[in-house]
């Protein structure tokens, strides 16, 4: 220990003498010192949150055996779990979080420790029933009670899954923000910059509330929110409030129309140019864009068959199946298990995306990567339909680092009731209900965007052209 300390000191000394003009050098981690886990970087609020979660665990130890397991686990695996918890908070923070809210997050979400430590960096599933209780007692931090009621309403819809899907969540967010901005009043202190006030008092807390209390935000919501913040920052300092409101609302409408609605029309045009008469198209789960593409084909010239693959527990494909059948498309419906059986008939695969990484890998509903891999092994081309506003400047190498955990109880077999399920599980069963997965860019033949069909390697170029504010290397902070 002492030796290390001396060594560190020596290094610092030499670097300062050699490069006195470059203070950044000292920040770089030294090669021979093990980089410690995030533990020392806990801020005061985070340390408090950690204490509170441990306290909550101890409180639940009075109720049942489960929580005692958790608290003992917490004590046993001291540094890794602290590191993990801190990571969890860090990730929770990095994913759009104010510092003060993390304490509430832990108390509401982690009533049981069902997930593997493998996934413990992901925020645990938040039970939406706990959010519904609006009595003032539950909403512990005062900032939440200042939120517009529309924000609470939307948050509920996010949490219980009534609004699902990258596009829907983004559109709903902008609709709500339009309402909020219409009801905005200037701060009492007239010296305050209204733009800062709008962003820090109204917009950011709403976004933080949704992300931390309801459901973690999607990449689309993140990109749209960045756009909104930029729009606010670009407003003139001395603008009339009415003008501000109309500019912002029109800007949001324009964003939705151009980047989503019109983009969808263009994507359908490019996508349908790749569909030939007699094709057998395979698609997975539910995607409004693919649904639009397949329903609006000129059925005189292009007679196709659609194979719809679905999977538990969400079974989102059922809605899509109904819509396609109503549109008169000939459909076959299978579950993911029979995929290898039908793949030899398939001529093309069309998939939707929740987000597009800048190396061309696709983040989408869990199971998409399986479909793409299977198609690749049968030499079936895979086309991913994705608007450019879904491009994230992140690069993810696999599905684990950036994912979302759903309700573990959804994995319950349909034959059991909830009570039977809970009692039969025992202490050794861990449940992991992942919602997303990452399809590597090797499995993707082409990405259909409103700019045309592109190879996955060109997504970075698109990011530069279409989302210039995102392509710079800067930390995301909400």
């Amino acid at each position, binding site marked *: 220990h002492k030796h290390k300390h001396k060594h560190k000191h020596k290094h610092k000394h030499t670097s300062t003498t050699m490069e006195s003009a470059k203070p950044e050098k000292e920040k770089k981690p030294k090669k021979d010192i093990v980089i410690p886990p995030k533990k020392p970087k806990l801020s005061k609020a985070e340390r408090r949150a950690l204490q509170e979660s441990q306290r909550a665990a101890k409180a639940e130890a009075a109720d049942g055996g489960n929580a005692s397991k958790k608290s003992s686990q917490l004590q046993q695996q001291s540094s890794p779990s602290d590191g993990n918890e801190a990571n969890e908070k860090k990730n929770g923070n990095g994913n759009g979080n104010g510092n003060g809210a993390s304490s509430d997050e832990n108390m509401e979400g982690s009533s049981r420790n069902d997930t593997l430590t493998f996934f413990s960096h992901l925020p645990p599933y938040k039970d939406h029933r706990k959010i519904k209780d609006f009595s003032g007692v539950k909403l512990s931090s005062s900032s939440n009670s200042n939120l517009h009621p529309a924000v609470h309403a939307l948050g509920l819809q996010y949490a219980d899954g009534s609004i699902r899907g990258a596009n829907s969540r983004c559109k709903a967010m902008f609709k709500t923000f339009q309402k909020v901005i219409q009801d905005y009043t200037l701060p009492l202190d007239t010296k305050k910059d209204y733009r800062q006030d709008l962003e820090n008092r109204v917009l950011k807390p709403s976004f933080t509330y949704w992300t931390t209390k309801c459901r973690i935000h999607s990449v689309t919501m993140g990109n749209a929110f960045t756009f909104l913040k930029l729009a606010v920052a670009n407003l003139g300092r001395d603008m009339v409030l009415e003008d501000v409101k109309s500019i912002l609302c029109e800007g949001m409408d324009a964003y939705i129309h151009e980047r989503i609605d019109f983009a969808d029309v263009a994507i359908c045009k490019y996508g349908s140019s790749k569909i030939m008469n007699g094709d057998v198209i395979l698609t997975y789960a539910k995607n409004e864009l693919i649904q639009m593409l397949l329903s609006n084909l000129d059925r005189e010239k292009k007679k196709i068959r659609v194979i719809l693959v679905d999977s538990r527990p969400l079974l989102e494909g059922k809605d899509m199946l109904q819509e396609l059948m109503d549109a008169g498309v000939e459909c076959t419906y299978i579950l993911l298990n029979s995929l290898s059986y039908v793949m030899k008939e398939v001529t093309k695969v069309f998939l939707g995306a929740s987000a597009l990484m800048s190396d061309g890998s696709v983040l989408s509903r869990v199971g998409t990567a399986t479909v793409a891999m299977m198609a690749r092994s049968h030499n079936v081309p895979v086309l991913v339909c994705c608007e450019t506003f879904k491009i994230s400047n992140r690069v993810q190498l696999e599905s684990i680092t950036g994912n979302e955990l759903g309700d573990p109880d959804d994995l319950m077999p349909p034959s059991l009731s909830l009570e039977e399920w809970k009692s039969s599980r025992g202490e050794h069963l861990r449940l992991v209900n992942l919602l997303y997965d990452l399809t590597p860019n090797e499995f993707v033949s082409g990405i259909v965007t409103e700019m*045309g069909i592109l190879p996955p*390697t060109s997504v970075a*170029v698109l990011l530069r052209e279409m989302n210039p504010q995102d392509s710079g290397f800067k930390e995301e902070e909400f």
Partner: protein
Amino acid sequence: MMGLEMELKKASEEMLSFANDPLNSHMLGGRSHIALASGCELFLKYITRCFLELPDFNECMAQILSRGQRFSDISLAARDRIAATGKAFIQPGARVLTHGWSSVVSSLLIQAAEDTHFEVIVLEGRPDASGAKAAKNFARAGIPATVVLDSAMAYVMERVDLVIVGAEGVVENGGIINKVGTYAMAIAAKELGKPFYVAAESFKFARLYPLNQSDLPVLGKGVAEHLNFVDTACWLSTGGMVGSRQKNGGDEKDEEHVPGLVSLPEDVKVENVLCDYTPAKYITLLLTDLGVLTPSAVSDELIRLYQ
């Protein structure tokens, strides 16, 4: 200005439909019109951009005419630029494999022959004997050339050091469309670890995105039925080795007279495809007048060219 654009568009469409007409296919030398189409589209794009910059009609016209002249100069100069960068890839004593007749590849190899000593293996190139034509050119330029059957491609692949081909068109994902047989050559080269280079000018970059072989634009639809390659080898490519009579199909009697001639009955279908699509993953590098590009850089260039 819009009027001019409309007329040019009509003119290019006229040219393309002419090229598409099976009766005219022999004028194109049996090759595809992709380069023609992409060249026209690029020029039209330039006109639109020019009009936006110079609203005055006369200035714009002058600019366009000079650009048009530059365009033709560029395509000739492009060949030289490609040859200048490309010849560095040929080491002394190398054996180069090539396919079909490409003026770009020929100029590259002939210029390289001035600096280094190497030999060339050419595939015969049925049904238009393009390979034979290429071999003739190489021999005249003093490069030792060997001609082998198209089917002997994989057989010779282990002997060669690198493969260089031209392209009819370069598509958006970095793949190429070239004379049929290029795809097979690319697969064999990848399997045996030989680098596969493509020499193509930038005006050949087309806004196509083929997903597989059947996704190619239909090239000269009637040509397939027109060129009956079973006959061609006997009469046209080999200089009438088997006899000087011109015959289409024929009956049983001719098989006695002409050794090696097989006349096919009506119900046997003949599919004579001109071009195939080589996906980007088999291509090592593209030698273009914009520089040496990896296949994934093609899309970036296309986005810039067609912006």
